[in-house]
Protein backbone atom coordinates (compact mmCIF):
# COMPACT_ATOMS: atom_id res chain seq x y z
CA UNK A 1 0.00 0.00 0.00
CA UNK A 2 1.29 3.51 -0.68
CA UNK A 3 1.74 5.94 2.19
CA UNK A 4 -1.12 8.21 1.16
CA UNK A 5 -3.62 5.36 1.00
CA UNK A 6 -2.36 3.99 4.33
CA UNK A 7 -3.14 7.38 5.88
CA UNK A 8 -6.60 7.30 4.33
CA UNK A 9 -7.51 3.81 5.51
CA UNK A 10 -6.05 4.40 8.95
CA UNK A 11 -8.08 7.60 9.29
CA UNK A 12 -11.25 5.73 8.40
CA UNK A 13 -10.43 3.03 10.95
CA UNK A 14 -9.90 5.80 13.51
CA UNK A 15 -13.48 6.93 12.91
CA UNK A 16 -12.89 9.72 10.41
CA UNK A 17 -16.01 9.94 8.28
CA UNK A 18 -15.42 13.37 6.78
CA UNK A 19 -12.71 14.42 4.39
CA UNK A 20 -12.47 17.80 2.68
CA UNK A 21 -9.63 18.53 0.29
CA UNK A 22 -8.35 20.07 -2.88
CA UNK A 23 -6.03 18.37 -5.37
CA UNK A 24 -2.31 19.03 -5.31
CA UNK A 25 0.67 16.84 -6.17
CA UNK A 26 2.22 14.79 -4.55
CA UNK A 27 -0.70 13.90 -2.25
CA UNK A 28 -3.53 13.20 -4.72
CA UNK A 29 -3.52 9.50 -3.87
CA UNK A 30 -5.04 10.42 -0.50
CA UNK A 31 -8.13 12.36 -1.67
CA UNK A 32 -8.54 9.79 -4.45
CA UNK A 33 -8.50 7.01 -1.88
CA UNK A 34 -10.98 8.85 0.33
CA UNK A 35 -13.30 9.55 -2.61
CA UNK A 36 -13.47 5.80 -3.25
CA UNK A 37 -13.66 4.62 0.36
CA UNK A 38 -15.76 7.15 2.25
CA UNK A 39 -18.97 6.51 0.27
CA UNK A 40 -18.67 2.89 1.51
CA UNK A 41 -18.63 4.10 5.12
CA UNK A 42 -21.98 4.68 6.85
CA UNK A 43 -22.45 8.46 6.93
CA UNK A 44 -19.12 9.03 5.19
CA UNK A 45 -18.65 12.25 3.24
CA UNK A 46 -15.92 13.05 0.74
CA UNK A 47 -16.11 16.57 -0.62
CA UNK A 48 -13.70 18.12 -3.10
CA UNK A 49 -13.66 21.77 -2.12
CA UNK A 50 -13.15 24.75 -4.41
CA UNK A 51 -9.93 25.70 -2.62
CA UNK A 52 -7.69 24.87 0.30
CA UNK A 53 -9.27 27.77 2.17
CA UNK A 54 -12.69 26.25 1.77
CA UNK A 55 -11.48 22.76 2.62
CA UNK A 56 -9.94 23.79 5.94
CA UNK A 57 -13.02 25.81 6.84
CA UNK A 58 -15.24 22.84 6.06
CA UNK A 59 -12.99 20.93 8.46
CA UNK A 60 -13.58 23.68 11.02
CA UNK A 61 -17.35 23.38 10.59
CA UNK A 62 -17.41 19.58 10.67
CA UNK A 63 -15.20 19.51 13.76
CA UNK A 64 -17.40 22.10 15.49
CA UNK A 65 -20.33 19.81 14.73
CA UNK A 66 -18.53 16.96 16.49
CA UNK A 67 -17.10 14.86 13.67
CA UNK A 68 -13.71 13.26 13.31
CA UNK A 69 -12.48 15.04 10.22
CA UNK A 70 -9.36 15.29 8.09
CA UNK A 71 -7.89 17.30 5.27
CA UNK A 72 -4.64 16.92 3.41
CA UNK A 73 -2.51 18.90 1.05
CA UNK A 74 1.05 19.65 0.07
CA UNK A 75 3.18 22.67 0.88
CA UNK A 76 1.63 25.47 -1.25
CA UNK A 77 -1.82 24.25 -0.27
CA UNK A 78 -0.87 24.04 3.41
CA UNK A 79 0.16 27.71 3.21
CA UNK A 80 -3.40 28.49 2.15
CA UNK A 81 -4.81 26.44 5.00
CA UNK A 82 -2.89 28.40 7.63
CA UNK A 83 -5.72 30.89 8.09
CA UNK A 84 -8.08 28.10 9.03
CA UNK A 85 -5.51 26.26 11.17
CA UNK A 86 -5.04 29.42 13.25
CA UNK A 87 -8.81 29.65 13.80
CA UNK A 88 -9.10 25.93 14.59
CA UNK A 89 -6.30 26.23 17.16
CA UNK A 90 -7.90 29.36 18.62
CA UNK A 91 -11.36 27.79 18.76
CA UNK A 92 -9.84 24.68 20.34
CA UNK A 93 -11.24 22.26 17.81
CA UNK A 94 -9.71 18.89 16.96
CA UNK A 95 -8.58 18.37 13.37
CA UNK A 96 -6.09 16.21 11.53
CA UNK A 97 -4.14 17.85 8.71
CA UNK A 98 -1.76 15.89 6.51
CA UNK A 99 1.06 17.71 4.75
CA UNK A 100 2.81 15.66 2.08
CA UNK A 101 5.65 18.15 1.83
CA UNK A 102 7.03 19.12 -1.57
CA UNK A 103 9.82 21.44 -2.64
CA UNK A 104 9.47 25.18 -2.21
CA UNK A 105 9.44 28.13 -1.93
CA UNK A 106 6.68 29.17 -4.29
CA UNK A 107 5.48 26.51 -6.65
CA UNK A 108 8.79 24.74 -6.06
CA UNK A 109 8.80 21.17 -7.23
CA UNK A 110 6.38 18.27 -6.94
CA UNK A 111 8.89 15.96 -5.29
CA UNK A 112 9.75 15.66 -1.60
CA UNK A 113 11.33 18.15 0.79
CA UNK A 114 11.47 18.97 4.50
CA UNK A 115 11.36 22.71 4.02
CA UNK A 116 8.03 23.16 5.84
CA UNK A 117 9.55 22.45 9.27
CA UNK A 118 9.38 26.05 10.46
CA UNK A 119 5.85 26.51 9.17
CA UNK A 120 4.72 23.29 10.85
CA UNK A 121 6.39 23.67 14.23
CA UNK A 122 5.92 27.41 14.80
CA UNK A 123 2.17 27.46 14.45
CA UNK A 124 2.23 28.43 10.80
CA UNK A 125 -0.50 31.05 10.76
CA UNK A 126 -1.02 34.24 12.74
CA UNK A 127 -1.14 34.34 16.50
CA UNK A 128 0.51 32.59 19.41
CA UNK A 129 -0.29 28.92 18.97
CA UNK A 130 1.29 25.57 18.21
CA UNK A 131 0.15 22.46 16.43
CA UNK A 132 1.21 18.96 17.36
CA UNK A 133 3.44 17.70 14.52
CA UNK A 134 3.95 13.98 13.94
CA UNK A 135 6.78 12.87 11.69
CA UNK A 136 6.49 9.32 10.28
CA UNK A 137 9.26 7.72 8.25
CA UNK A 138 7.54 4.64 6.84
CA UNK A 139 4.18 3.62 5.45
CA UNK A 140 3.50 1.77 8.72
CA UNK A 141 4.18 4.90 10.71
CA UNK A 142 2.02 6.95 8.33
CA UNK A 143 -0.84 4.62 9.29
CA UNK A 144 -0.04 4.44 13.03
CA UNK A 145 0.56 8.14 13.49
CA UNK A 146 -2.55 9.13 11.56
CA UNK A 147 -4.57 6.85 13.82
CA UNK A 148 -3.00 8.39 16.90
CA UNK A 149 -3.39 11.90 15.51
CA UNK A 150 -7.18 11.69 15.89
CA UNK A 151 -6.91 10.81 19.58
CA UNK A 152 -4.32 13.52 20.23
CA UNK A 153 -6.47 16.08 18.42
CA UNK A 154 -9.47 15.24 20.57
CA UNK A 155 -7.57 14.82 23.84
CA UNK A 156 -6.09 18.29 23.54
CA UNK A 157 -8.73 19.85 21.27
CA UNK A 158 -6.10 21.11 18.89
CA UNK A 159 -5.06 20.63 15.26
CA UNK A 160 -2.54 17.85 14.66
CA UNK A 161 -0.27 17.81 11.62
CA UNK A 162 0.98 14.60 10.09
CA UNK A 163 4.12 15.70 8.27
CA UNK A 164 5.04 13.35 5.47
CA UNK A 165 6.76 14.13 2.21
CA UNK A 166 6.53 13.23 -1.44
CA UNK A 167 8.56 10.04 -0.96
CA UNK A 168 6.62 8.78 2.07
CA UNK A 169 3.29 9.57 0.42
CA UNK A 170 3.99 7.63 -2.74
CA UNK A 171 6.27 4.76 -1.76
CA UNK A 172 4.75 1.33 -1.24
CA UNK A 173 5.47 -0.91 1.74
CA UNK A 174 3.63 -3.66 3.59
CA UNK A 175 1.45 -2.17 6.29
CA UNK A 176 -0.87 -3.33 9.07
CA UNK A 177 -3.70 -0.84 9.39
CA UNK A 178 -4.69 -0.17 13.03
CA UNK A 179 -8.00 -1.70 14.00
CA UNK A 180 -11.26 0.21 13.90
CA UNK A 181 -12.53 1.95 16.98
CA UNK A 182 -15.87 0.57 18.01
CA UNK A 183 -16.96 2.83 20.82
CA UNK A 184 -16.68 6.28 19.30
CA UNK A 185 -19.45 8.50 20.61
CA UNK A 186 -18.57 11.99 19.42
CA UNK A 187 -21.78 13.49 20.82
CA UNK A 188 -20.34 13.23 24.34
CA UNK A 189 -18.13 16.22 23.55
CA UNK A 190 -19.47 19.06 25.65
CA UNK A 191 -18.48 21.93 23.36
CA UNK A 192 -19.82 20.96 19.93
CA UNK A 193 -22.81 22.46 18.15
CA UNK A 194 -25.77 20.16 17.71
CA UNK A 195 -28.66 22.56 18.15
CA UNK A 196 -29.30 23.72 21.73
CA UNK A 197 -31.79 21.04 22.72
CA UNK A 198 -32.35 20.63 26.47
CA UNK A 199 -29.20 22.60 27.24
CA UNK A 200 -27.83 26.14 27.05
CA UNK A 201 -26.71 27.40 23.67
CA UNK A 202 -23.01 27.14 22.84
CA UNK A 203 -20.63 29.47 21.06
CA UNK A 204 -17.43 28.39 19.32
CA UNK A 205 -15.39 31.52 18.74
CA UNK A 206 -11.97 33.10 18.72
CA UNK A 207 -12.91 36.78 18.96
CA UNK A 208 -12.73 38.56 22.29
CA UNK A 209 -13.98 42.11 22.73
CA UNK A 210 -12.10 42.60 25.99
CA UNK A 211 -8.31 42.48 25.93
CA UNK A 212 -8.24 40.75 29.30
CA UNK A 213 -10.46 37.97 27.96
CA UNK A 214 -8.12 37.36 25.04
CA UNK A 215 -5.17 37.38 27.41
CA UNK A 216 -6.86 34.74 29.56
CA UNK A 217 -7.67 32.71 26.43
CA UNK A 218 -4.01 32.80 25.38
CA UNK A 219 -2.91 31.77 28.88
CA UNK A 220 -5.30 28.85 28.64
CA UNK A 221 -3.81 27.81 25.28
CA UNK A 222 -0.31 28.23 26.69
CA UNK A 223 -1.11 25.95 29.65
CA UNK A 224 -2.41 23.36 27.20
CA UNK A 225 0.77 23.58 25.14
CA UNK A 226 2.81 23.09 28.32
CA UNK A 227 0.82 19.91 29.05
CA UNK A 228 1.50 18.69 25.52
CA UNK A 229 5.21 19.42 25.90
CA UNK A 230 5.26 17.47 29.16
CA UNK A 231 3.37 14.43 27.88
CA UNK A 232 3.63 13.98 24.15
CA UNK A 233 7.30 14.12 23.17
CA UNK A 234 8.25 11.04 21.18
CA UNK A 235 11.47 10.00 19.47
CA UNK A 236 13.41 6.96 18.38
CA UNK A 237 16.86 6.36 19.86
CA UNK A 238 19.10 4.37 17.53
CA UNK A 239 22.47 2.87 18.42
CA UNK A 240 23.28 5.48 21.03
CA UNK A 241 24.95 3.10 23.51
CA UNK A 242 28.45 3.25 22.05
CA UNK A 243 27.98 6.23 19.74
CA UNK A 244 30.48 9.08 19.62
CA UNK A 245 28.41 11.19 17.28
CA UNK A 246 24.60 11.49 17.10
CA UNK A 247 22.63 12.17 13.97
CA UNK A 248 19.45 14.15 14.48
CA UNK A 249 17.09 13.58 11.56
CA UNK A 250 13.40 12.89 10.99
CA UNK A 251 11.19 11.39 8.31
CA UNK A 252 12.78 10.48 5.00
CA UNK A 253 16.09 12.06 6.03
CA UNK A 254 16.23 9.71 9.02
CA UNK A 255 15.78 6.69 6.74
CA UNK A 256 18.70 7.79 4.61
CA UNK A 257 20.73 8.50 7.75
CA UNK A 258 19.95 5.09 9.20
CA UNK A 259 21.20 3.48 6.00
CA UNK A 260 24.37 5.55 6.24
CA UNK A 261 24.90 4.67 9.93
CA UNK A 262 24.47 0.95 9.22
CA UNK A 263 26.83 1.15 6.26
CA UNK A 264 29.54 2.87 8.31
CA UNK A 265 29.14 0.44 11.19
CA UNK A 266 29.36 -2.63 8.96
CA UNK A 267 32.19 -1.32 6.78
CA UNK A 268 34.27 0.37 9.40
CA UNK A 269 33.70 -0.59 13.00
CA UNK A 270 35.55 2.50 14.17
CA UNK A 271 32.88 4.92 13.04
CA UNK A 272 30.34 4.75 15.84
CA UNK A 273 27.37 6.95 15.01
CA UNK A 274 23.89 6.74 16.54
CA UNK A 275 20.73 8.67 15.91
CA UNK A 276 17.93 10.52 17.64
CA UNK A 277 14.92 10.58 15.36
CA UNK A 278 12.19 12.92 16.58
CA UNK A 279 8.78 11.46 15.73
CA UNK A 280 7.10 14.50 17.23
CA UNK A 281 8.61 17.69 15.82
CA UNK A 282 6.47 19.78 18.12
CA UNK A 283 6.78 19.08 20.94
CA UNK A 284 10.48 18.59 20.14
CA UNK A 285 12.58 16.06 22.11
CA UNK A 286 14.84 18.79 23.54
CA UNK A 287 15.30 17.04 26.88
CA UNK A 288 16.40 13.82 25.19
CA UNK A 289 19.01 15.70 23.18
CA UNK A 290 20.16 17.56 26.28
CA UNK A 291 20.46 14.29 28.23
CA UNK A 292 22.39 12.58 25.46
CA UNK A 293 24.72 15.58 25.20
CA UNK A 294 26.04 14.74 28.68
CA UNK A 295 27.67 11.65 27.13
CA UNK A 296 28.09 12.59 23.50
CA UNK A 297 29.06 16.08 22.39
CA UNK A 298 28.85 15.87 18.59
CA UNK A 299 25.48 16.23 16.89
CA UNK A 300 25.11 15.85 13.15
CA UNK A 301 21.87 17.40 11.90
CA UNK A 302 20.71 16.14 8.54
CA UNK A 303 17.70 17.72 6.87
CA UNK A 304 16.21 17.90 3.41
CA UNK A 305 16.15 21.65 3.82
CA UNK A 306 18.88 24.21 4.24
CA UNK A 307 18.61 24.01 8.02
CA UNK A 308 15.42 24.47 9.99
CA UNK A 309 15.28 21.74 12.65
CA UNK A 310 18.90 22.62 13.42
CA UNK A 311 17.54 25.65 15.30
CA UNK A 312 15.67 23.36 17.69
CA UNK A 313 18.81 21.26 18.19
CA UNK A 314 20.76 24.45 18.98
CA UNK A 315 18.07 25.50 21.47
CA UNK A 316 18.14 22.04 23.06
CA UNK A 317 21.94 22.12 23.43
CA UNK A 318 21.77 25.67 24.71
CA UNK A 319 25.31 26.54 23.65
CA UNK A 320 26.72 23.13 24.54
CA UNK A 321 28.01 20.41 22.24
CA UNK A 322 29.28 20.65 18.69
CA UNK A 323 26.78 20.88 15.87
CA UNK A 324 27.53 19.54 12.41
CA UNK A 325 25.12 20.09 9.58
CA UNK A 326 24.38 18.68 6.18
CA UNK A 327 21.32 19.94 4.38
CA UNK A 328 19.95 19.44 0.91
CA UNK A 329 17.02 21.53 -0.26
CA UNK A 330 14.96 18.50 -1.20
CA UNK A 331 13.76 17.21 -4.58
CA UNK A 332 17.17 15.53 -5.08
CA UNK A 333 17.85 12.66 -2.73
CA UNK A 334 21.35 11.93 -1.43
CA UNK A 335 22.09 8.21 -1.23
CA UNK A 336 23.07 6.53 2.05
CA UNK A 337 26.60 5.99 0.74
CA UNK A 338 26.93 9.67 -0.19
CA UNK A 339 25.68 10.67 3.24
CA UNK A 340 27.92 8.07 4.90
CA UNK A 341 31.00 9.69 3.33
CA UNK A 342 29.95 13.11 4.61
CA UNK A 343 29.08 11.79 8.05
CA UNK A 344 32.43 9.97 8.30
CA UNK A 345 34.30 13.14 7.38
CA UNK A 346 32.57 15.04 10.22
CA UNK A 347 33.09 12.10 12.55
CA UNK A 348 36.82 11.96 11.97
CA UNK A 349 37.12 15.73 12.24
CA UNK A 350 35.43 15.52 15.65
CA UNK A 351 37.73 12.66 16.68
CA UNK A 352 40.83 14.67 15.72
CA UNK A 353 39.49 17.62 17.71
CA UNK A 354 38.91 15.41 20.75
CA UNK A 355 42.40 13.93 20.55
CA UNK A 356 43.69 17.50 20.23
Amino acid at each position, binding site marked *: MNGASAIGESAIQAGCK*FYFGYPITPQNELPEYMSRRLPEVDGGVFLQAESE*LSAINMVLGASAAGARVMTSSSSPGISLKQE*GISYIAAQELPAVIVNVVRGGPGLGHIAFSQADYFQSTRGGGHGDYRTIVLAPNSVQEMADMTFRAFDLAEDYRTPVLVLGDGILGQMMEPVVIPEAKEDLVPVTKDYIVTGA*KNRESRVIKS*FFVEGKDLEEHNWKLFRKYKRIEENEVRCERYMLEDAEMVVVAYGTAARIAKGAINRLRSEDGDVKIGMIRPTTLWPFPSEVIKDVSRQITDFFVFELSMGQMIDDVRLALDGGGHIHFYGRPGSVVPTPSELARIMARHYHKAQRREKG
Partner: protein
Amino acid sequence: MKQVYSRPKSLKRVWMHYCPGCGHSITHRLIAELLDEMELQDKAICIPPPGCSVLAYNYLDIDMVEAPHGRGAAVATGIKRVRPECLVFSYQGDGDLAAIGTAETLHAANRGEFVTAIFVNNAVYAMTGGQMAPTTLSGQKTTTSPYGRNPQTDGKPIKMSEILSAFDGTSYLERVAVNNPKNIRRTKKAIRKAFEHQIDKKGFSLVEILSPCPINWKMDPLKACEWIDEVMTKEFPLGVIKEV
Protein backbone atom coordinates in the same frame (compact mmCIF):
# COMPACT_ATOMS: atom_id res chain seq x y z
CA MET B 1 -55.55 40.69 27.78
CA LYS B 2 -54.12 39.17 24.62
CA GLN B 3 -50.37 39.58 24.36
CA VAL B 4 -49.41 40.76 20.90
CA TYR B 5 -45.75 41.61 21.31
CA SER B 6 -42.93 40.30 23.48
CA ARG B 7 -39.27 39.45 23.35
CA PRO B 8 -38.71 36.27 21.33
CA LYS B 9 -37.43 33.37 23.38
CA SER B 10 -34.57 32.90 20.88
CA LEU B 11 -33.28 36.39 21.65
CA LYS B 12 -31.14 36.80 24.76
CA ARG B 13 -32.18 39.41 27.32
CA VAL B 14 -29.25 41.78 26.75
CA TRP B 15 -28.71 45.19 25.23
CA MET B 16 -27.43 45.16 21.67
CA HIS B 17 -24.29 47.11 20.84
CA TYR B 18 -25.45 48.14 17.38
CA CYS B 19 -25.47 51.81 16.41
CA PRO B 20 -28.76 53.76 16.36
CA GLY B 21 -30.57 53.08 13.10
CA CYS B 22 -28.55 49.95 12.22
CA GLY B 23 -30.43 47.15 10.47
CA HIS B 24 -28.72 44.27 12.30
CA SER B 25 -30.87 44.49 15.41
CA ILE B 26 -34.07 44.33 13.33
CA THR B 27 -32.74 41.39 11.33
CA HIS B 28 -31.64 39.56 14.51
CA ARG B 29 -35.11 40.00 15.93
CA LEU B 30 -36.80 38.71 12.78
CA ILE B 31 -34.61 35.61 12.85
CA ALA B 32 -35.38 35.06 16.54
CA GLU B 33 -39.13 35.44 15.93
CA LEU B 34 -38.94 32.89 13.12
CA LEU B 35 -36.90 30.41 15.16
CA ASP B 36 -39.64 30.63 17.81
CA GLU B 37 -42.55 30.40 15.40
CA MET B 38 -41.02 27.56 13.37
CA GLU B 39 -39.84 25.80 16.56
CA LEU B 40 -36.27 25.69 15.33
CA GLN B 41 -34.37 27.20 18.27
CA ASP B 42 -33.07 23.81 19.39
CA LYS B 43 -32.10 22.77 15.87
CA ALA B 44 -30.49 25.97 14.67
CA ILE B 45 -26.79 26.60 14.16
CA CYS B 46 -25.72 30.08 13.04
CA ILE B 47 -22.37 31.06 11.57
CA PRO B 48 -21.71 34.73 12.38
CA PRO B 49 -18.98 36.58 10.47
CA PRO B 50 -16.17 38.89 11.51
CA GLY B 51 -17.62 42.39 11.42
CA CYS B 52 -20.24 44.28 13.42
CA SER B 53 -22.43 41.20 13.66
CA VAL B 54 -19.70 38.93 15.02
CA LEU B 55 -21.42 39.55 18.34
CA ALA B 56 -24.64 38.00 17.06
CA TYR B 57 -23.73 35.17 19.43
CA ASN B 58 -24.41 37.52 22.32
CA TYR B 59 -27.95 38.06 21.08
CA LEU B 60 -29.30 34.94 19.39
CA ASP B 61 -29.82 32.18 21.92
CA ILE B 62 -28.78 29.32 19.65
CA ASP B 63 -25.60 27.37 18.88
CA MET B 64 -23.05 29.50 17.04
CA VAL B 65 -19.75 28.90 15.24
CA GLU B 66 -17.72 31.95 14.30
CA ALA B 67 -16.24 31.72 10.80
CA PRO B 68 -13.12 33.41 9.43
CA HIS B 69 -13.84 36.37 7.16
CA GLY B 70 -15.57 35.13 4.01
CA ARG B 71 -15.67 31.47 4.91
CA GLY B 72 -19.25 31.29 6.18
CA ALA B 73 -20.49 29.10 3.36
CA ALA B 74 -17.59 26.65 3.80
CA VAL B 75 -18.07 26.41 7.58
CA ALA B 76 -21.83 26.02 7.02
CA THR B 77 -21.10 23.21 4.55
CA GLY B 78 -18.94 21.38 7.07
CA ILE B 79 -21.58 21.68 9.80
CA LYS B 80 -24.51 20.74 7.59
CA ARG B 81 -22.75 17.67 6.18
CA VAL B 82 -22.23 16.41 9.74
CA ARG B 83 -25.64 17.49 11.06
CA PRO B 84 -28.14 17.41 8.19
CA GLU B 85 -30.99 17.50 10.74
CA CYS B 86 -30.02 20.99 11.91
CA LEU B 87 -31.04 24.34 10.45
CA VAL B 88 -27.71 25.83 9.40
CA PHE B 89 -27.46 29.45 8.33
CA SER B 90 -24.64 31.90 7.86
CA TYR B 91 -25.04 35.57 8.66
CA GLN B 92 -22.77 37.55 6.38
CA GLY B 93 -22.08 41.06 5.21
CA ASP B 94 -21.36 42.26 1.69
CA GLY B 95 -17.58 42.27 1.95
CA ASP B 96 -17.69 38.86 3.59
CA LEU B 97 -20.05 37.17 1.15
CA ALA B 98 -19.39 39.07 -2.09
CA ALA B 99 -15.66 39.88 -1.95
CA ILE B 100 -13.36 37.76 0.20
CA GLY B 101 -15.84 34.89 0.35
CA THR B 102 -17.06 34.93 -3.25
CA ALA B 103 -15.60 31.53 -4.08
CA GLU B 104 -17.02 29.88 -0.95
CA THR B 105 -20.45 31.39 -1.61
CA LEU B 106 -20.62 30.51 -5.31
CA HIS B 107 -19.46 26.94 -4.83
CA ALA B 108 -21.70 26.20 -1.85
CA ALA B 109 -24.58 27.55 -3.95
CA ASN B 110 -23.52 25.54 -6.98
CA ARG B 111 -23.33 22.35 -4.91
CA GLY B 112 -26.82 23.14 -3.70
CA GLU B 113 -25.83 22.85 -0.05
CA PHE B 114 -28.94 22.79 2.11
CA VAL B 115 -27.94 25.90 4.02
CA THR B 116 -29.20 29.48 4.11
CA ALA B 117 -27.23 32.69 3.84
CA ILE B 118 -28.59 35.81 5.51
CA PHE B 119 -26.77 38.38 3.38
CA VAL B 120 -26.77 41.84 4.93
CA ASN B 121 -25.95 44.37 2.21
CA ASN B 122 -25.20 47.85 3.55
CA ALA B 123 -22.87 48.88 0.72
CA VAL B 124 -19.86 49.47 2.99
CA TYR B 125 -17.39 47.68 5.24
CA ALA B 126 -19.00 48.94 8.42
CA MET B 127 -16.96 47.51 11.30
CA THR B 128 -13.67 48.66 9.82
CA GLY B 129 -14.92 52.22 9.44
CA GLY B 130 -16.81 52.52 6.17
CA GLN B 131 -14.50 51.43 3.36
CA MET B 132 -15.68 50.67 -0.18
CA ALA B 133 -17.47 47.31 -0.45
CA PRO B 134 -18.18 45.19 -3.54
CA THR B 135 -21.75 46.49 -3.29
CA THR B 136 -20.85 50.18 -2.85
CA LEU B 137 -22.90 52.14 -5.38
CA SER B 138 -21.33 53.94 -8.33
CA GLY B 139 -20.37 57.41 -7.20
CA GLN B 140 -20.83 56.56 -3.51
CA LYS B 141 -18.21 58.11 -1.27
CA THR B 142 -16.53 55.90 1.30
CA THR B 143 -13.26 56.17 3.21
CA THR B 144 -11.44 54.32 0.41
CA SER B 145 -13.42 55.90 -2.42
CA PRO B 146 -13.24 59.51 -1.24
CA TYR B 147 -14.05 60.78 -4.76
CA GLY B 148 -16.91 58.34 -5.15
CA ARG B 149 -16.79 54.78 -6.52
CA ASN B 150 -15.53 54.98 -10.08
CA PRO B 151 -17.04 52.19 -12.21
CA GLN B 152 -14.20 52.63 -14.72
CA THR B 153 -11.58 51.58 -12.19
CA ASP B 154 -13.54 49.88 -9.38
CA GLY B 155 -16.22 48.13 -11.42
CA LYS B 156 -19.91 48.39 -10.72
CA PRO B 157 -21.57 47.02 -7.58
CA ILE B 158 -21.81 43.24 -7.61
CA LYS B 159 -25.29 41.74 -7.65
CA MET B 160 -24.71 38.47 -5.87
CA SER B 161 -28.33 37.36 -5.81
CA GLU B 162 -28.63 37.71 -9.58
CA ILE B 163 -25.31 35.90 -10.08
CA LEU B 164 -26.40 33.05 -7.81
CA SER B 165 -29.70 32.68 -9.68
CA ALA B 166 -27.76 31.15 -12.57
CA PHE B 167 -26.81 28.10 -10.50
CA ASP B 168 -29.01 25.01 -10.51
CA GLY B 169 -28.08 24.49 -6.86
CA THR B 170 -29.95 27.59 -5.66
CA SER B 171 -33.64 27.29 -4.91
CA TYR B 172 -34.68 30.51 -3.18
CA LEU B 173 -33.19 33.96 -3.61
CA GLU B 174 -34.88 37.16 -2.60
CA ARG B 175 -33.78 40.75 -2.06
CA VAL B 176 -35.54 42.63 0.70
CA ALA B 177 -34.88 45.64 2.92
CA VAL B 178 -35.33 46.52 6.60
CA ASN B 179 -35.97 50.24 6.13
CA ASN B 180 -39.74 50.46 6.79
CA PRO B 181 -42.44 48.33 8.43
CA LYS B 182 -43.75 46.96 5.13
CA ASN B 183 -40.29 45.88 4.00
CA ILE B 184 -39.50 44.46 7.42
CA ARG B 185 -42.58 42.23 7.23
CA ARG B 186 -41.52 41.20 3.74
CA THR B 187 -38.05 40.38 5.06
CA LYS B 188 -39.48 38.09 7.69
CA LYS B 189 -41.50 36.25 5.06
CA ALA B 190 -38.42 35.90 2.87
CA ILE B 191 -36.30 34.42 5.67
CA ARG B 192 -39.14 32.02 6.51
CA LYS B 193 -39.25 30.92 2.87
CA ALA B 194 -35.48 30.48 2.79
CA PHE B 195 -35.52 28.35 5.95
CA GLU B 196 -38.38 26.28 4.51
CA HIS B 197 -36.40 25.66 1.34
CA GLN B 198 -33.52 24.39 3.45
CA ILE B 199 -35.74 22.15 5.55
CA ASP B 200 -37.46 20.79 2.43
CA LYS B 201 -34.02 20.11 0.89
CA LYS B 202 -34.79 22.15 -2.20
CA GLY B 203 -31.39 23.79 -2.43
CA PHE B 204 -29.20 26.68 -1.34
CA SER B 205 -31.24 29.69 -0.20
CA LEU B 206 -30.18 33.27 0.36
CA VAL B 207 -31.95 36.41 1.49
CA GLU B 208 -30.19 39.64 0.59
CA ILE B 209 -31.20 42.35 3.03
CA LEU B 210 -30.56 45.99 2.18
CA SER B 211 -29.74 47.39 5.56
CA PRO B 212 -29.10 50.96 6.73
CA CYS B 213 -25.72 51.97 8.14
CA PRO B 214 -26.36 55.60 9.14
CA ILE B 215 -22.97 56.09 10.83
CA ASN B 216 -20.88 55.11 7.83
CA TRP B 217 -23.31 56.60 5.34
CA LYS B 218 -23.07 59.81 7.38
CA MET B 219 -26.84 60.20 7.49
CA ASP B 220 -29.37 60.30 10.27
CA PRO B 221 -31.32 57.04 10.66
CA LEU B 222 -34.44 58.33 8.90
CA LYS B 223 -32.46 59.66 5.94
CA ALA B 224 -30.62 56.31 5.74
CA CYS B 225 -33.95 54.49 5.48
CA GLU B 226 -35.08 56.88 2.74
CA TRP B 227 -31.77 56.47 0.91
CA ILE B 228 -32.43 52.74 0.60
CA ASP B 229 -35.72 53.48 -1.19
CA GLU B 230 -34.48 56.41 -3.24
CA VAL B 231 -31.01 55.26 -4.26
CA MET B 232 -30.06 51.75 -3.22
CA THR B 233 -33.09 49.92 -4.60
CA LYS B 234 -32.46 51.51 -8.02
CA GLU B 235 -29.24 49.47 -8.22
CA PHE B 236 -30.53 46.55 -6.15
CA PRO B 237 -34.24 46.10 -6.97
CA LEU B 238 -36.30 44.32 -4.33
CA GLY B 239 -38.22 41.12 -4.97
CA VAL B 240 -37.97 37.39 -5.43
CA ILE B 241 -35.06 36.68 -7.76
CA LYS B 242 -35.47 32.95 -7.88
CA GLU B 243 -37.90 30.44 -6.45
CA VAL B 244 -37.86 26.81 -7.44
